[in-house]
């Protein structure tokens, strides 16, 4: 069972629709006890960092996320909040990955970075394909970066630190390639459980 964290800043239906379309079992919840029974956790993200952090705090989910042992996948904002802090509202984030989420420079490219961009996996195996992005802030390339793309600047399209995975793009909105990535995450969760 994959647990999808229900908080105000999420695009829940998109993620749960995608997971159901690949026949993954899904639990949508904001209750740490219920989520702790899942073999993997997804933190979706549409929204703004300050509100997202407040919502996680209010639901007592910060400690839960920080101490997870099962695979975790943060999507878009759900990946950004894994870092130390975000320039968006100068928000203190979860601090699982070191670094600061930066804002795109609108003089170098159109902002938001909106649409399908080619993602190149540089570390872990992954499918170099077009994925869908929609964001104005980004994670600079760092030790955790596993894939990159560019929008005026090269940045992290995907990252990993231990059992924490993150993608800046929206696999749930990236057609067949995105669904294959989600399937891969679900398979990882299942093998972890065994």
């Amino acid at each position, binding site marked *: 069972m994959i647990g999808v964290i229900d908080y*105000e*800043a999420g*695009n*829940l*239906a*998109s993620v749960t*629709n*995608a997971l159901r*379309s690949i026949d993954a079992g899904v639990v949508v919840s904001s209750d740490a006890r219920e989520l702790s029974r899942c073999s993997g956790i997804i933190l979706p993200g*549409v*929204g*703004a960092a300050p*509100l997202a952090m407040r919502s996680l705090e209010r639901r007592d989910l910060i400690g839960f996320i920080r101490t997870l042992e099962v695979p975790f996948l943060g999507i878009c*904002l759900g990946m950004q909040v894994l870092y130390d802090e975000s320039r968006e509202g100068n928000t203190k984030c979860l601090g699982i990955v070191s670094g600061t989420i930066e804002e795109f420079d*609108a*003089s170098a490219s*159109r*902002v*938001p*970075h*909106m*649409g*399908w*961009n*080619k993602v190149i996996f540089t570390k872990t195996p992954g499918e170099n394909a*077009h994925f*869908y*992005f*929609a*964001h*104005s802030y980004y994670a600079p390339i760092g030790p955790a970066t596993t894939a990159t793309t*560019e*929008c005026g600047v090269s940045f992290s399209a995907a990252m990993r630190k231990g059992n924490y995975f993150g993608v800046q793009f*929206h696999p*749930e*909105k*990236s*057609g*067949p390639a*995105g*669904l294959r990535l989600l399937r891969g995450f679900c398979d990882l969760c299942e093998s972890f459980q065994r």
Partner: protein
Amino acid sequence: MLTKRVIPCLDIRDGRVVKGKRFENLVDVGDPAALAARYSDEGADELVILDISASLQERRPFFEIVRAVAREVAIPLTVGGGIRTIDDITELLHAGADKVTLNTVLVDDPRLLSRAAERVGSQALVASIDATGGRSVRVKSATQETRLDAVEWGRQLVSYGAGELLVTSIDRDGMKSGYDCDLLRALHESVRVPIVASGGAGTKEHILDALEAGNADAVLAASIFHFGEIPIRELKVFLKSRGVAVRI
């Protein structure tokens, strides 16, 4: 490199996809969820669904149809028509929309964009501009005139928090005479957010023009896709052969 997007638009009235000319003379095209699934499979980069009678009838948006369409597609979904409040916006995002497009409400309350941006982020907020006679803005499905200039209005909407502009030429809607590239270019030079061109697609060359001469980041079209005149894949192969970056 960020690719240019090809976006079929589903205008919806009474639960069915319809298409007209200059916002009038509507004909039935089909079922929203079935058509959405087809376009998703054929390589559409995004879908826009618009409830074209909600503003006129002062109804709330069509949540059920959004849920039905969202279940069928794994590509981004933008929803518009009749959106008036933050609750409408968050409820649509929960129903499966990835972005909402706002139009009529912004004339009275442009700050709705700022309030919504704090809640859902600018990347989920599209502002729609319907223009006639070049740069005169109209609202309520083009039935009501305003004193706004499309380019100045676009600039204001972006400053309030719009993350994208959907620019429709009312005069060219359904007429297949080509997009209004002058208007698109003027907006492109005035704002830094992505611009979606709409109204006037009749041939593949029109679409190439909107992307090149008009500098649009995405093209929206309805008739040419609904009536099978230009298959999406064929359009993308054509664009690629002309040097446009597209996802195939």
